[in-house]
């Protein structure tokens, strides 16, 4: 019970520090909207066939950028932010205090999930206002929220896991981006992947969690069929990330 109270208290400090780090806040909040404007201007005219439904490309990008925003706020933010805190000795210091280390990290994860929800709300509102994109409602809203919560939690866990092979603060952004950017492209987040894409790209999408997550959010925006298998696969990835982090996570600076 004490740990829960301490975790909730800690979220306040995580939030304060988060908004005062201009780089982090800018990247997570400005990038998705900026990309949305750029992609819809460049590629967003016309329609796309999604599961037999004719969909505006601009709506497609509203859903895709919502996925991108969540992944930035969870996986990228955790991977880079936690590595910096590890290397600066803050995590070691927490480990030597009465606050259980996992409570401290849980506060960061919960905060990232809250930021994810906020980002999706902003992206959806922006899409609705400027591109007349639909907003998830009714039954699809429930599915949508399930995928959002499981997805952001899972990508946070994967963000914790990726800190394990990162040797120092300087290389954290490079390693985190090198692991996620190719996947974002190969999972259709930046450029729609049609049925005629090479088989290996389709397989990358099936194996890794990004496409499943993006499809799940897309179902909420576009009204395509929602697959529980998408939630399951994303959740399994998250569970594996959590296990790896629990086993190999370092509280002390590596460099």
């Amino acid at each position, binding site marked *: 019970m004490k740990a829960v109270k*301490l975790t909730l*208290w*800690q979220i306040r*400090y995580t939030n*304060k*520090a*988060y908004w*005062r*780090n201009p780089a982090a806040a800018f990247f997570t909040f400005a990038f998705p909207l900026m990309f949305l404007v750029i992609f819809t201007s460049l590629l967003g005219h016309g329609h796309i066939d999604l599961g037999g439904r004719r969909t505006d490309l601009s709506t497609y990008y509203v859903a895709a950028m919502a996925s991108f925003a969540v992944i930035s706020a969870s996986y990228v933010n955790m991977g880079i932010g936690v590595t910096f*805190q590890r290397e*600066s*000795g*803050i995590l*070691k*210091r927490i*480990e*030597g*205090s*009465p*606050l*259980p280390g996992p409570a401290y990290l849980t506060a960061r994860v919960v905060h990232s999930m809250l930021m994810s929800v906020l980002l999706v709300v902003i992206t959806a509102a922006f899409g609705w206002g400027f591109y007349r994109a639909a907003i998830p409602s009714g039954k699809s809203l429930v599915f949508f929220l399930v995928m959002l919560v499981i997805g952001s939690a899972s990508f946070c866990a994967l963000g914790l896991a990726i800190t394990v092979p990162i040797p120092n603060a300087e290389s954290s952004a490079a390693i985190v981006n090198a692991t996620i950017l190719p996947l974002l492209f190969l999972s259709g987040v930046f450029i729609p992947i049609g049925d005629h894409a090479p088989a290996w790209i389709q397989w990358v999408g099936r194996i890794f969690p990004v496409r499943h997550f993006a499809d799940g959010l897309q179902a909420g925006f576009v009204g395509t069929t929602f697959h529980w298998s998408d939630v399951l696969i994303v959740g399994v990835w998250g569970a594996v990330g959590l296990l790896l982090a629990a086993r190999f996570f370092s509280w*002390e*600076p590596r460099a």
Partner: protein
Amino acid sequence: MVDDAATGPNARGDRDYAVEVRGLTKSYGGVRAVTGIDFHIARGEVFALLGPNGAGKTTTVEILEGFRRRDGGDVSVLGYDPGHPHSQLHDLLGIVLQSSAVDPYLTVEEMIGMFAHFFPHPRPVGEVIELVGLSEKRSSRVVKLSGGQQRRLDVAIALAGDPELLFLDEPTTGFDPSARRGAWEVVKNLAALGKTVLLTTHYMDEAQYLADRVAVIAAGRIVAEGTPATIGGRDQARPRVRFRVPAGTRPPAELAAETTTAGIITFATDDITRALHTLTTWAIDRGVVIEGLEILRPSLEDIYLELTGEAAGDSSQPVGSVAGEAG
């Protein structure tokens, strides 16, 4: 959590000691970092571990803090075994790590407040800020503080939980002289509050100024222990008198003085009062002018160099150039 009885303070630990260490050993991949250390720290005492880099100071302290597991020996910290982490023990400790560890985006006040909240009986944040002399910076973000101020914030964070025992691992390394003085006053204040302090340092003057007792550690073991004034037989070493007299004059033979280079004369004595009387009476009677008269005792630094040099000489782990200078 499950077995509170087994994790509570043990009965055999001496209540008067905050820290007891017996036969402590630790190796890293076959390299022996700590090779059998014994010491104890009384409650309310400021104890300094003095030694060169790589001597095993930080390894020892981090074992006591619970960051490292020991290979062998008995360790008791406030009656607990730090090899088995207890949240009750963490409630009683204040830890300042060797490198600063602060969140750049929080303010001084927030940073201290955040840590204070983890403890059952925190000290008021304003009081802690006052104690380390950061009152004017209380609303400044950490990123705006100087290195010395960040270090003082480190100490403030360690004080936030009103700990019984404080670990300060090289608290003033990299400070300029005035910042060091400031930090020393902070530690003096802590001692005045009755806190037990374990300090590591490689500065002789720091140990001398702050510590009630000093242990000199070199190549993984303690080579001397005592008060700064008596360590290494410092108080028993015979004082030496040194002076200059005009060329051709010879001081009284009973002083057994010898002339060194450049006309400087020195002698050692057990009875400094009588020796000085003999010398000055002789000078006045003969009308000799004595210049540059000094009475020399071995400084803590002399003793330290001698001790750490000896340890380095018979060890596989060299401690640098100290050995050559000690002779």
